[in-house]
Structures are given as structure tokens and as C-alpha cells.
């Protein structure tokens, strides 16, 4: 008897396993490969135990397993610090706890850990799909919690699921209220971020083949939406990195900004550094917001030229070479606002040491390129004419291709005069080399170009295959001027995304992006992306500022008093609605036909002094009355009614109201006759 209170009902074990499997599944991609194997082992053991085939594992085995898991984690991660090792340790604990779960208490603990695991999966991914999946995980966990409380026999699966779903539906409005109103207070202490995720997007090195490799990925780099009209796609040069060092093969960033530039990054709140004076915005600014997918890198993407905003975003700074930078590696989706001005002068004053920097070339190599550059510069007369002549060279008979031939030692020479086939990095790299060789300061800029406009969502979707490399040359008076040699070779690339022209090459086979020539699928793809985007903006991007803006609009000015009142009134209202619904569902039901007739039957007998005892069935009651009344008339009337009642209630056969009325009438007559007889017989005796 007592044990029933503590022992785990059998069905809840199955719910628990289902809930656990669902919560662990998304985590497996971020964790050591052997964890799923352990889980499978534990699962098999538990199921065998459930079927009564195997005993629970012994103490020695459990100790050995625990030791093995810890050793395995140390071997896989080399350290126990960091998010992944900690999560793995938690999972190991959950798995091994399975092996000794027999009581309700253990099961409760497991469900609680399960809720925590569902939360942890959001640290690794935040897409809409994951969130929808997590709702399923929570449903399973709540059902498991419910089944622990249910008695064996009342735990029918569909009913448990329905009940859990109802609980969740009731909790949903309250959650939304808390989500909107509860203050966000920001990080309390620093926490380890996920590290095992591969770095994606453009890297800080550019060698031939890098961008073309990236161009084969259909993944999303970021999404951007403009306030007001967006610029033309050929204007969307998303600046990511500026590469000024060339070692003969690849381009890279300057190792460390020169001390004369310090501080090289302006975070928005400190005193303005000197280089900020050396730039000028001329045209009309526009604003846009970017939601960057996690890259595990620090650089952000923006359009030229970024104006440091009034409301600086914490953790995002402007670097001296005109690009945006994040204080931390971007390990989860990041949303940021930018103001840019398309008409600008960047670094119009170029100091001599800066000029030397931007003219750097390796001591030797590519002799033909150097010699040609110097000759052409002399023949051209000025820098602009020389650049035009270079671009004319590219326009002549170069081929823009994703699969260029490999280049040897003197890559620029080979490219310009032999292979003449290349991707954007070949054009940008050779162009900057030629410019520098002619004495014009130049550098390579890496980022993305263009994007796909999602008309349904009103935003730009920038894919990895939009990765691009172009160049900047420094001209007196004008400062840094963007020159894209790829535009000279393949003007269509600048106007249209690679995904439009070569979807079959850049997209994976099982992605909707590959089938964008089918209108329906294409629309579905854009619709889904739009949904994802709005999900992110509304939910993930709901930060302190957004919260303040929303509450300000709702409450017409935020004050602590108003917030407290909102929580009190809103919360009470929601809870009152829930109570109302629960009360409505449990209100006494109107009596069914049989119950109504039964009530009349009881009332008839009550008039004669017979009361049905609590818990007494109709048949037993009738037998008791018949036994004491000693009247065949009453006995047969009672029997007739009981037969009718059983027919309706237990055999579920519908009984017409005529028959009910007839039975009751017979009952009434029998009782009247009996009492009449009793009176006359008592008179007779007197």
C-alpha cells in the first residue's frame, strides 16, 4: 500500500525515455560521438528491465560506467571547462541516473534535468524550427511529469497527452505576459560560449580558391532590412574585412594596427580617436538593421560608410578602416543597427607611413606584372587613367568561373597572361597588386555582395555564396575609392546573385534553394525564410531596448508602478480566465434522461419512506424495498423499472420516454394500491 506512493508507475518510464530522447537529439551534433552510444545502451537495459528480462545494473557496473564517462569526457575535450564539456557531463549524469531510477523521486529529478536540457539546446541553436521542436520536447516532459502522478490504470496515453497539452495552453498566455514584462538585466557573470561549432563565412585570409569554396555554400550569412527604400543591389557591398598584407600567395590583415592609430576601434562611448576626424560623410544617410548568423568570428558586415550612431550598441565598435567589429565572437545570432552614408570621403589625408603600408609588396615575384604596371602608369599619365586601362584589360577576354585552374609561384603573372580564368578573389588580388606595383595605395576588401530580396518579409537575404572580394584604391582628394574588377569581367554578377544564375552549383541537393526555378518551391523557401526572420526579430531580438519601446507604446510611458499594475492586472485576468474555464468544464452536467427518471423513481419511494443509502445501487435498493414491502405488485413494478434502468445505463440501449413513463406510472399505482390496502386493512381491524 505504502509503496504505491513511492514506486514509479510503469507507463511513465516510457514517457520519460521519449522525453529524454527528444531533448537529447539536437544536442548530439555538438557533443562527442560516443554519448549516443551510451544512451542507446542505457535505453536497451532499461527496456529489458521494463520487460522483466534483465535485473537493474549492479553497484560495481554503475561505478565503472560513471568512471568511464568522466574519463571519456576528459579524453574528448582535454578540459572540463567550457560549455560543451559541462553539458556533456550533465548528459552523462542524466543517462546514468536512468539506470537507478525506480522511485517517483528519481523520476521527478530526471524530468527536471530534462527541462534544463531543453533549455541548453537553445544555447547551440535558436532557429524557428528548433523552437517548434522544443515545444514538442516540453510537451513530452510535461506528460512524463503527469504520468508520474497518475495511478497505474488511469494513465491512458492519449488522455495524458491531452491533459498535458491543456496545461501548456493554459500556461502560454501567462508566459507571454512574463516574457514581455519581466525586466532583462543583462549578463550577471561571464559564461563559456559554444566552441565546437565550425567557423563559417569569410575568413581573415584570402588565398586563391577561398571565396569560390565559400560560394558553394547555400547557407545564410545574414539578413538585413532597410528603413525606407533599400539601395540598388549593385550598391550592396557588405564590407567585412580589409586586407592589406600580401605575402605573394595570400592576403591578410595587418597584424596589429600601428600605435599611431590607437585606439583602433571606437566603441561609441569614449573620447573620439583622431582617425575619426579623417573621414567625411557627404550624402544622405540611411539606416538598416542586420541579423547575423553565428560565425564564431568577430567581424560584422556593413555598407560603406558607417556613421557612428548616437545610440551606440554595446559591444559593437567601428574600426579605423571603416568596418564594424564585435567585442566578442558571434556565437549566436546577433542583431545590430547601422547608419551608413553612401557618399563619403574615407581617409582623405593619407600619412606617409600609412601610404607605405598600403603600398607593401613582397620583395620579389611576379616580375612581369611589376614591369607592366610601371610602364602602363607612365604611359597613362594619371592614376585614374591607369585604373581604366587595367579594367579594360580585365574586360578584354577574361573568364569568370567558379572552377579556375590552379596557379603556381608567380600567381599574378600566371593569372593575367596565361590562365585568364578566375573568381572574384583572383581579380581583386591581381588588381591590387597591379595598383601597388604602379605606386597607387590599394587594398583588398572582403565581404558579401548583393543578396536576395525577400519581398514577403521586406528584407535582404544574404547567402554564403554572395561572398565577394573587391578592391579599394586611394586617390588624392577622394580618399579610398571602391573598384570592383569583377564587375568589369562579369557585370551580371554584380547585378544578380550567384544563386540566381548558378543555383545548381552553389546550393546543396537537398535544399529548397536549388529548386528556385520551380515557382511554388521558391515561394515556399522565401516564405519559410521570412517566417524565420520575423521570428528572430520578434523573439530573439526582443532585448532591453525593444522591450522598453513596446512597453512605452502600450503604457504610454514606462514607470515601475505601471509595470507592477500591468503584471497584477494582466496576471489576475489570465488566471481568472483559466479558473473560469476550469469551472465551466467541471460545472454539474444536466441530468441525462435516465438520471431524470431515476430521480423521479427515488422521489416516489421517498414519499413512502424509502431512502436509497449512499453507495447503494438501484438494483440493491429495489431488492431491499421489495423484500420489506411484501407486495407482489410493488415487487414487479420495481423489477420493471430496474430492468429499464439497466437496459439504458449499462446495456446502452435507448429507452423511449413512453416506456419510462409507463414504468413510473405502474410504480405509482402499485404504491397507491398498497397504501390504500394498508389503510383499509387497518380500518378492518378496528
Amino acid at each position, binding site marked *: *500500500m*505504502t*509503496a*504505491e*506512493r*513511492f514506486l514509479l508507475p510503469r507507463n511513465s518510464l516510457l514517457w520519460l525515455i521519449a522525453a529524454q530522447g527528444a531533448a537529447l537529439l539536437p544536442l548530439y551534433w555538438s557533443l562527442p560521438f560516443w554519448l549516443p552510444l551510451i544512451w542507446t545502451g542505457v535505453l536497451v537495459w532499461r527496456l529489458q528491465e521494463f520487460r522483466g528480462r534483465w535485473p537493474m545494473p549492479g553497484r560495481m557496473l554503475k561505478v565503472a560506467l560513471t568512471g568511464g564517462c568522466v574519463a571519456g569526457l576528459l579524453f574528448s575535450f582535454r578540459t572540463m571547462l567550457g560549455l560543451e564539456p559541462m553539458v556533456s557531463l550533465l548528459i552523462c549524469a542524466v543517462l546514468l541516473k536512468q539506470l537507478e531510477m525506480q522511485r*517517483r523521486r528519481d523520476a*521527478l*529529478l530526471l524530468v527536471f534535468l530534462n*527541462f*534544463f536540457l*531543453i*533549455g541548453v539546446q*537553445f*544555447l547551440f541553436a535558436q532557429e524557428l524550427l528548433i*523552437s517548434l521542436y*522544443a515545444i514538442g520536447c*516540453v510537451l513530452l516532459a*510535461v506528460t512524463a*511529469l*503527469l504520468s*508520474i*502522478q*497518475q*495511478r497505474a*490504470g*488511469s494513465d491512458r496515453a492519449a488522455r495524458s497527452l491531452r491533459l498535458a497539452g491543456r*496545461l*501548456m495552453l493554459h*500556461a*502560454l498566455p*501567462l*508566459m507571454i505576459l*512574463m*516574457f514581455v514584462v*519581466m525586466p*532583462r538585466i*543583462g*549578463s*550577471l*557573470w561571464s*559564461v563559456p560560449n559554444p566552441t565546437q561549432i565550425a567557423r563559417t563565412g569569410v575568413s581573415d585570409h584570402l588565398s586563391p580558391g577561398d571565396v569560390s569554396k565559400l560560394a558553394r555554400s547555400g547557407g545564410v550569412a545574414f539578413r538585413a532590412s532597410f528603413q525606407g527604400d533599400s539601395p540598388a543591389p549593385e550598391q550592396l557591398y557588405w564590407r567585412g574585412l580589409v586586407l592589406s598584407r600580401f605575402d605573394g600567395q595570400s592576403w591578410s590583415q595587418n597584424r596589429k594596427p600601428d600605435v599611431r592609430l590607437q585606439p583602433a576601434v571606437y566603441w561609441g562611448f569614449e573620447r573620439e580617436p583622431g582617425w575619426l576626424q579623417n573621414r567625411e560623410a557627404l550624402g544622405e544617410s540611411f539606416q538598416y538593421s542586420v541579423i547575423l548568423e553565428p560565425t564564431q568570428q568577430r567581424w560584422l558586415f556593413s555598407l560603406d560608410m558607417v556613421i557612428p550612431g548616437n545610440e551606440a550598441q554595446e559591444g559593437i565598435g567601428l574600426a579605423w578602416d571603416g568596418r564594424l567589429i564585435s567585442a566578442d565572437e558571434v556565437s*549566436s545570432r546577433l542583431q545590430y543597427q547601422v547608419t551608413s552614408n553612401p557618399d563619403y570621403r574615407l581617409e582623405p589625408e593619407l600619412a606617409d607611413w600609412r601610404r607605405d603600408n598600403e603600398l607593401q609588396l613582397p620583395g620579389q615575384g611576379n616580375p612581369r606584372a611589376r614591369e607592366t604596371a610601371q610602364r602602363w602608369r607612365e604611359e597613362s599619365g594619371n592614376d585614374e587613367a591607369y585604373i581604366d586601362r587595367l579594367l579594360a584589360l580585365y574586360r578584354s577576354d577574361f573568364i569568370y568561373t567558379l572552377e579556375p585552374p590552379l596557379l603556381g609561384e608567380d600567381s599574378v603573372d600566371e593569372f593575367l597572361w596565361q590562365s585568364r580564368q578566375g573568381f572574384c578573389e583572383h581579380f581583386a588580388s591581381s588588381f591590387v597588386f597591379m595598383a601597388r606595383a604602379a605606386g597607387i595605395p590599394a587594398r583588398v576588401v572582403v565581404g558579401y555582395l548583393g543578396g536576395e530580396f525577400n519581398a514577403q518579409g521586406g528584407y535582404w537575404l544574404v547567402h554564403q555564396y554572395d561572398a565577394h572580394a573587391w578592391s579599394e584604391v586611394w586617390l588624392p582628394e577622394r580618399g579610398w575609392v571602391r573598384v570592383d574588377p569583377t564587375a568589369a569581367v562579369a557585370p551580371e554578377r554584380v547585378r544578380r546573385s550567384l544563386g540566381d544564375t548558378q543555383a545548381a552549383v552553389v546550393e546543396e541537393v537537398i535544399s529548397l534553394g536549388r529548386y528556385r526555378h520551380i515557382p511554388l518551391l521558391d515561394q515556399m523557401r522565401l516564405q519559410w525564410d521570412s517566417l524565420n526572420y520575423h521570428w528572430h526579430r520578434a*523573439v*530573439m531580438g*526582443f*532585448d532591453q531596448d525593444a522591450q522598453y519601446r513596446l512597453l512605452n507604446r502600450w503604457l504610454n510611458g514606462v514607470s515601475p508602478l505601471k509595470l507592477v499594475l500591468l503584471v497584477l492586472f494582466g496576471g489576475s485576468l489570465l*488566471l481568472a480566465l*483559466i*479558473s473560469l474555464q*476550469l*469551472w465551466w468544464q*467541471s460545472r*454539474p*452536467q444536466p*441530468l441525462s434522461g435516465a*438520471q431524470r427518471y431515476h430521480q423521479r423513481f427515488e422521489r416516489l419511494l421517498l414519499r413512502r419512506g424509502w431512502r436509497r*443509502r*449512499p*453507495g447503494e445501487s438501484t438494483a440493491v435498493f429495489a431488492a431491499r424495498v421489495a423484500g420489506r414491502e411484501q407486495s407482489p405488485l410493488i415487487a414487479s413494478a420495481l423489477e420493471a423499472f430496474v430492468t429499464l434502468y439497466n437496459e439504458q445505463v449499462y446495456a446502452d440501449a435507448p429507452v423511449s420516454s413512453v416506456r419510462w413513463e409507463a414504468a413510473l406510472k405502474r410504480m405509482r399505482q402499485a404504491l397507491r394500491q398498497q397504501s390504500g390496502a394498508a389503510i383499509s386493512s387497518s380500518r378492518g381491524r378496528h
Partner: protein
Amino acid sequence: MSQNPAAHRSPPSIFAGLRRFYQHRFDRWLASRLQPARSHTLNNRRLFIMPSRAGYGFLLVVVLLWLTGTNYDNNLVLALAFFLAALFVVCIHHTFFNMTGLHIEVVGSAPCFLGEDGELELVVSCSPGRRKEALRLALGEGNESWVDLLDTTSVRLKLFTPGLQRGWYQPPRLRVESRFPLGLIRCWSWVVLDQPILVYPRPLAGGELPQTAAAGEEGKLVSDPGAEDFYGFRGYQQGESLRHIAWKHYARGQGLHVKEYSSQQSRVVWLDYDAMPGTGLEARLSRLCHWVLQLSASNTVFGLRLPGVELAPGQGVEHRQRLLRQLALYRCQPQSAVVGGSLL
């Protein structure tokens, strides 16, 4: 069956004293509030509701998730934390509605010997259309029964509680509790059932039947019960004393049977209070009780003499019941206040 979890908690003595003090005061308050009745309907005036220990654990998970969400600036983790908090609040309502409107009525009791389990018969019901699940009913400690009202509106059940006092014994408060649906919230109520249990004296074997007691009209009585003729076996019926169960049969897996004895003797025997060994009232009543059982089992015709009371000799079950009832109520101490189990 399993060890009582409460036994592991032994707070320091000061706290124990304080606890006793408050428990006593609470006890009195509760007793003044709960009026004994044969039927009770639970409503918000008599339902208590608090988080269970699991509920506090659940809140800890909520706090941990909130900390994680805040530190990682992750709105989805925060949303999950808020969702679980909302679930907790919603659970309060669901647990309450699972208990309110429950109707408990006592329909009878079965007598017992002092120290053995007496029985209360209850009907637990709710109005049609309502559903009640995982209700736990307990009389005192450890004596519990689980009830579901899902497809039916009423359930009849028996609860057992040891008879602690001879005479009309008022059973301890009935505790009705439920943690449904999620076990996070505990909702309970105390019900005082106005249905005393008749408790007979504890039968106590006392050697041979005193000779003076055996002053029969037709010679002497062979009084050794061991010598009585074994008559046969009869199926055990619930509520019967366990004393005559044929345990060997039970051990062989043949079910519960009761040994029946019969006696060919038909002499009239008088059981006399004054002739019983022992000094106190209770001790003598215990001996008398033993002999009433023995003699009625051996079909002897016997009567009972108590100071001031005399019951004529007779035979059979009804005679036995009359005698036992007389023994139970003889110079019985007045009813004491309701005896409570643990309170919280």
C-alpha cells in the same frame, strides 16, 4: 512496507519543541474549525494548498534556467524559464479544481478488538461531469487508499485504522490529498468523520477457565480449547479476525481459510467478572473477551455476569456480538477529543 520517510528527519531538540508547540496550537485551531459530520463536501474554505517538495525543486530549475538565459542573453532560454513558471502557477488552479467539490460520506464502520484495525466504509463522489484523479485518502499515518473518479461519479472504499481505545472510538481525522496533475502543488483537507468505531477489549488468554466460573447446571466443563473438535474449514471473509486463519493452507497458496471448531457439549457456562484473574478492569475484560470468543467458537451455551449487569446464557453469533458489545461499553471512559495524525 517501506520505511517511513518522516522517520529519517529528526530536527534538533529546540526545533522539535517549537514544532510540538505549534503543532499543538494548530491542532486546537483545526479541531475548532473542523466539525464532525457524516458527510463533507470539500470547498475553498477547507482546502489547504502549498507547493510540494517537488514543486520547490521545480522552482529551482526555473531559477537556474532564468540565470542561464540572462547570462547568455538568450531569449529562448528565458522564455522556457517563464513558461515553466507559468506552468507552476497554472498548476495551482488545476490541483485546486481537482479537489474542490469532492464529496465524502461515511456509510458505516466495522468493530475491532483493541489494537487491531477497525474499518470505516466511505463513499467518495463528485457531481457528474467533474473528474477527480489521484486522490489519496489516509486515516492517520500510513493507512492510505488511492481513488480516481474518471468514468464514474462515486467510489466505495474501506479504510482501516487501529482501534486505540475501548468503547466507541473516534477514528483520527481523515486526510484527503492530491498532487495531481504535475505533483508540484499539494492540495489537502482534513475531514472529521462522525462515525465512531466500536472497539472490543483486547482478548487475552488467561490459562484455564476459573472453576467458579464454570458453575454449570449440568456438570463440569472440559474447558481446554485445544481439545475441542476440529470441525472444518471455511473461506475467510474480510473483516474477520485473523486469529483462526489456517496459515499453513495460506502458505501453500490455497487462499485464506478459517478453522472452525465445534463442540458436542451443551452445558451452560457463566463467565463471571469477579472470578477472572487479574486486577484491573481492562485486564479482566480482556480475559472475559477471550473466553467469549472461545466459548462461542465451541458452540457452548454461556452467559455473562458483570458487576451490575447480567446477560442471560445464549448461543450463536448474535449472542456473541451482544456480549462483546457489552464488554466494549462496560464502564467505558468518556469520549476524548479527536485524535489527530501528523498535521502537515
